[in-house]
């Protein structure tokens, strides 16, 4: 980069760093008003599902984008939360199902997911780059086979069905409109949390480890502790999404967390962009739209080809997914957010 380009950027960057501007307000209003125009199908199958899968991709993006640790196991983490809800709460399968109230199962499910994520982080903390990807892929595969072959806890291949969403405040929270708002609330809270924490003391230490782990150690930080905590926090987001996902489908089985589905989460995050927490949601929306309508366009069996092609094209023309393209065409957005990394 030339001296001059550098100076321009410097000038732009050192002025205000407003993170939540008019763009956010407009976008938020549009999302709130969406049920007024959307059919039930578009509310849940497109809206709700994109928000949920976006949260799982967000869990991956925070580790990858801020920490430089690419995890293929975040869907497994979400799956743990789903299984906890199915096992401790109600299901119609006749296996397990202790009918504990949701106010107990949901916090336990999220905690179990976060603890699992922290454990995976601890296991992979000494690796970096491609080795982190390999280890987390191995863990995702192991979780899948364990769930499939264990009948005592996970009910093996068939898993659990008939898992209801709770009814409270006089609403059935699986009805399209309430469910959409529930997802929107959870997604917005996760998104805002990530936006805030990335500039917190802890958030800066995570980005410091990404840029230069050796220097962080020399400065007096315990790198392993900071990594494990980052995985724990990211696991909370995946866990919340896992609870919503099991309410959405009403069932969970090993096929919900197989390796292909795990890779899809990575595809969403990369298609959307890894440098800003809105990216994973954009990527999730694109993939959910393709998944839903690809069969009409190219036939169901060619669906993966279409996703793959989309992926290739976007990675080829942009350095950071759809967000990267957006930055090229809307430079003002760039100045507000690039410096956050």
């Amino acid at each position, binding site marked *: 980069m030339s*001296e001059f380009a550098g100076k321009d950027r410097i000038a732009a960057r*050192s002025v205000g760093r407003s993170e939540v501007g008019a763009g956010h307000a407009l976008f938020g209003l549009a999302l709130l008003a969406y049920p007024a125009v959307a059919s039930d199908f578009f509310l849940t199958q497109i809206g709700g599902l994109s928000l949920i899968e976006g949260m799982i991709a967000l869990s991956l993006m925070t580790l990858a984008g801020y920490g430089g640790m690419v995890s293929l196991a975040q869907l497994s983490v979400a799956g743990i939360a789903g299984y906890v809800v199915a096992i401790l709460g109600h299901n119609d399968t006749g296996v397990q199902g202790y009918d504990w109230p949701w106010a107990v199962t949901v916090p336990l499910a999220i905690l179990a997911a976060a603890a699992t994520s922290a454990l995976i982080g601890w296991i992979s903390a000494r690796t970096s780059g491609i080795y982190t990807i390999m280890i987390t892929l191995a863990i995702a595969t192991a979780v899948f086979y364990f769930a499939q072959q264990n009948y005592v806890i996970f009910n093996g291949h068939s898993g659990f069905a008939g898992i209801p969403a709770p009814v409270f405040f006089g609403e059935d929270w699986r009805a399209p409109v309430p469910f959409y708002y529930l997802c929107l609330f959870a997604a917005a809270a996760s998104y805002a949390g990530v936006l805030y924490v990335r500039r917190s*003391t802890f958030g*800066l230490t995570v980005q*410091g480890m990404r840029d230069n782990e050796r220097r962080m150690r*020399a400065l*007096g930080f315990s790198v392993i502790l900071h990594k494990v905590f980052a995985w724990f926090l990211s696991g909370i987001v995946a866990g919340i999404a896992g609870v919503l996902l099991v309410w959405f489908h009403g069932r969970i089985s090993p096929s919900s967390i197989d390796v292909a589905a795990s890779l899809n989460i990575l595809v969403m995050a990369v298609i959307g962009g890894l440098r800003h927490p809105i990216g994973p949601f954009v990527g999730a929306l694109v993939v959910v739209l393709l998944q839903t309508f690809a069969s009409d366009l190219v036939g169901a069996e060619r669906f993966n080809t279409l996703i793959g092609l989309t992926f290739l094209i976007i990675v080829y023309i942009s350095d950071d997914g759809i967000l990267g393209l957006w930055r090229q065409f809307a430079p003002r957005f760039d100045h507000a957010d690039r410096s956050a990394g």
Partner: protein
Amino acid sequence: MSERAVLPKMLEAGAFALELSGVSRRFGALAALSNVTLRIAVGERRAVLGSNGAGKTTLFNVVTGDFMATAGRIRFFGEDITALPAHERTRLGLRRTYQISLLFSRLTVVDNVYLACRGVSRRRLSLLRPRPSGPVMEQAFSILQAVRLDDVANVEVALLSHGQKRQLEIGMALAGAPRFILFDEPAAGLSPAEREDLVAVLNALPRHIGYIIIEHDLDVALRVASFVSMMHNGAVFKEGAPEEIESDPEVQQIYLGGAHA
């Protein structure tokens, strides 16, 4: 404050900030450091000179604990630190800069210094944002002023010039309460004007902070240090006042022998 209070007492007692006795470091068959004995008084500022591969950076790595010594003892303000891990030496007030900058390239300048300050203080896991008026941020900004980077505080480090990155390296070494600093070729690649800045920054450091500076450029080294150690092949072979060293035939032999970087 307390450090300054104990300083005169330590000087009286003839105490040393850093004391190496018979320190060696091997890499397989290569003796990168052999039997180095070095004593640096509290508050003293020392230059280490030597050709490429003489073992200067290895000396620093062994003192900071980046590498462990394979033989010998190291004392820091009287305390034996030979077996102490690197981050604990940092907490004792030992700092260093790196020959090749090791910075957080995608964070801003002030965030780099902030992390350096936070590393030696508490609440490292806080999920709250640092308060701009808090003591740690305030320290970060006063360091930025000391190394003349306050006007680029919010710039991403990747966009800095080489000279600014070298200054930031120094700034990060000033975080917390440093008692002794190891500067590894801070002037490398700097323009003549930037060298003047560097000399000014070093000479403006509080008197109680001692340091060792590795520097090929005698002009710079002799203006910021009062005593010189010459290294060659992993050993210290000559020590003396700058004038003695400058006129020493053996030194001239090595330096004019084409060892300049």
